[in-house]
């Protein structure tokens, strides 16, 4: 057991750190969403030129081929320096890895480079209004038609859909097959009239997400990934990449927010309130348990080569902790927290944490069934 970095790992960290110091573009511009997006696109271009964009991707596909620990170090350094997120984050952590794992040579040739450079933005069309946790029940239908498919249906909670050129789309290609077997994973061209994108305004007032309406949208056969009827398996790979990719960064972000909360408690004279002290200590303990649990999982994955379902535990812990943290901040601020402010924004935004990327209830099901081996209800 050694929680310090090896000299090689330290060397890698120093390399990331000094590159970030020299190239950090400053914070993303506030207010104008379009300006912000272009800023983040440019930032990704810079990351790509230096070989950081596809850090986890194999070298033959333009990535860095970094080890798991290097990926974690990179995420931590990005979070620590408050670097903006790259514009095409979904393409980098989900779309690209799926094409690499399941795509044809032609698809790799066509899609990967523009993902890395952020020339082509990707979004993800999985959830539907009637298919949230029960994703495999989704109804968007794909009907074969001379060398391609016609797709009709509605997707929801699609981040970046209004900027995206491509959508990772799960649709039902065989209505007669059992629900997990009748799905296919497509790459949908968003630049066609049959695809309509509308912003979805959320409780914070902003629109991070969109809805997509498809009416006979066209997809050529060449843009099926992993074979017709294999969509569920391919889609699950996407979600595993999502959970693995976001783990380390979320622990660092939580740490930073907790430090801000401690500073807030001191500023507002709440530092000697025993109830506040107890709750901050609980948050400190949860944040550390999350960080350390992530490192234990990482070691396990490096030793066995398999990421376990423990990522579900981390997603649940993170959501609970971030919600408790932002709730405490509003209590310290008192009625001032009812005004629109950074903390009130975070407080409202945190409500989505236990829903987005898999609800806490689904995480508990996964833990119960796959880790503890309890019988399935269904």
């Amino acid at each position: 057991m050694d929680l310090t970095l090896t000299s090689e790992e330290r060397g890698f960290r120093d390399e990331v750190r000094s590159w970030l110091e020299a190239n950090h573009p400053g914070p993303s511009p506030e207010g104008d969403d379009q300006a912000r997006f272009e800023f983040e696109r440019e930032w990704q271009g810079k990351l790509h030129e230096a070989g950081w964009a596809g850090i986890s991707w194999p070298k033959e596909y333009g990535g860095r081929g970094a080890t798991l620990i290097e990926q974690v170090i990179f995420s931590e350094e990005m979070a620590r320096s408050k670097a903006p997120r790259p514009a095409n984050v979904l393409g980098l952590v989900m779309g690209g890895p799926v094409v690499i794992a399941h795509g044809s040579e032609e698809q790799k040739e066509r899609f990967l480079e523009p993902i890395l450079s952020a020339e082509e933005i990707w979004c993800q069309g999985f959830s539907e209004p009637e298919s949230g946790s029960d994703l495999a029940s989704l109804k968007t239908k794909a009907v074969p038609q001379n060398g391609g498919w016609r797709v009709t249906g509605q997707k929801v909670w699609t981040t970046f859909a209004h900027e995206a050129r491509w959508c990772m789309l799960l649709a039902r290609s065989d209505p007669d097959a059992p629900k997990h077997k009748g799905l296919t994973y497509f790459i949908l061209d968003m630049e066609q009239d049959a695809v309509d994108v509308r912003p979805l305004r959320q409780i914070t007032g902003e629109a991070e997400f969109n809805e997509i309406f498809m009416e006979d949208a066209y997809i050529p056969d060449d843009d099926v990934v992993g074979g017709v009827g294999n969509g569920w398996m391919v889609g699950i790979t996407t979600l595993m990449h999502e959970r693995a990719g976001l783990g380390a960064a979320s622990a660092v972000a939580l740490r930073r927010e907790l430090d801000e909360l401690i500073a807030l408690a001191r500023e507002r004279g709440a530092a000697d309130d025993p109830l506040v002290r107890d709750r901050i200590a609980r948050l400190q303990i949860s944040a550390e348990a999350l960080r350390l649990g992530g490192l234990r999982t990482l070691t396990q994955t490096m030793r066995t080569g398999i990421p376990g379902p423990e990522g579900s535990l981390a997603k649940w812990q993170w959501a609970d902790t971030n919600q408790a943290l932002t709730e405490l901040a509003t209590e310290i601020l008192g009625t001032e927290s009812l005004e629109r402010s950074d903390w009130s924004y975070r407080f409202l935004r945190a409500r989505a944490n236990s829903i987005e990327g898999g609800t806490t209830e689904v995480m508990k099901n996964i833990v119960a069934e796959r880790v503890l081996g309890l019988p399935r209800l269904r």
Partner: protein
Amino acid sequence: MDFGFNDEQQEIQRTAREFLSARFTPEKVRELAESRSYDDALWSEISELGWPGIAIDEEHGGQGLGMVELVILCEELGFACAPIQFLSNAAAGLFIDAAGSDEQRGRWLPGIASGETLGAAAFTPEEDAIVPDAQGAAVLVLPQGDDGVLVERSAADVKPLELIDSTRSYAQVEASGGDPLPDAHLHRGADRLMVAIAAELTGIAQRAMEMAVAYAKDREQFGRPIGSYQAVSHRCAKMLLDTEEARSLTYYAAWTAGAEPESLPLAASMAKARASDAAWEVAASALQVLGGIGFTWEHDLHFLLKRAKVTGELMGSAREHRERVAGLVGLAAEPVAG
């Protein structure tokens, strides 16, 4: 970066699990707990395996290993719910090692390491402190203000306590004078002991969770295993979260003791706070999963539940440790009223 046990540590863990499950069968634990007694033959066996001296240096007859190895044993002893003097004897070793003079270390550590001359220590700071296993020890580490003193058992008045946990023996001790521990590092021993206790609590939580999960798979109501109901399965998932958080924090704290001592005070209190809550909450939740049978004397869960409650209070409650954590992460210490 590697947050896992090495081969030797895995071997210690595997051996301990096998040995303890063979020796401390549920029947054996029940027999000892109901009679509030220990088995001397088992202590001899454990001593032959070198366990009492695992974290004591070789110069004093120990194995010269560290807190990680001690924590592995404590977790397994908690998992086994073993009635044995291990923790109290190890505690005396940790205190004497941290704060004793060369002469005190030379006099007492070899007996503690070999298991032939046992030590015991106060696990609470008050004058009427709880001293587990004081009855059978040769030397006691007792609090005196902020410092500690060594008192020989023959010079102390030991009053047995009947706590709800009958898997360990407890006492209060009256003594005056004693041989002061001169080094100012008594707190290092205390921090290490907190981590050892957190490990035992983690083992208790793991065992209670396994009992609940096994029962939830087996027990049927309304024609289905109760573990297929989310009201039950989500309760079990929470047990895993509690146990794993306690485990991560405990292993980390054990590692800091050797590798990063400046991080030990915060790490030890985080581990102790989390493990105290986890052991109690998992055991209590397991009782709910077991339902009526879990409330009977006949079922073994209550030995774990009571041990979780009592052990959770030793060397500071979860609440007290969170107060210490708050102070250590940048909130000034709570002002004294008045």
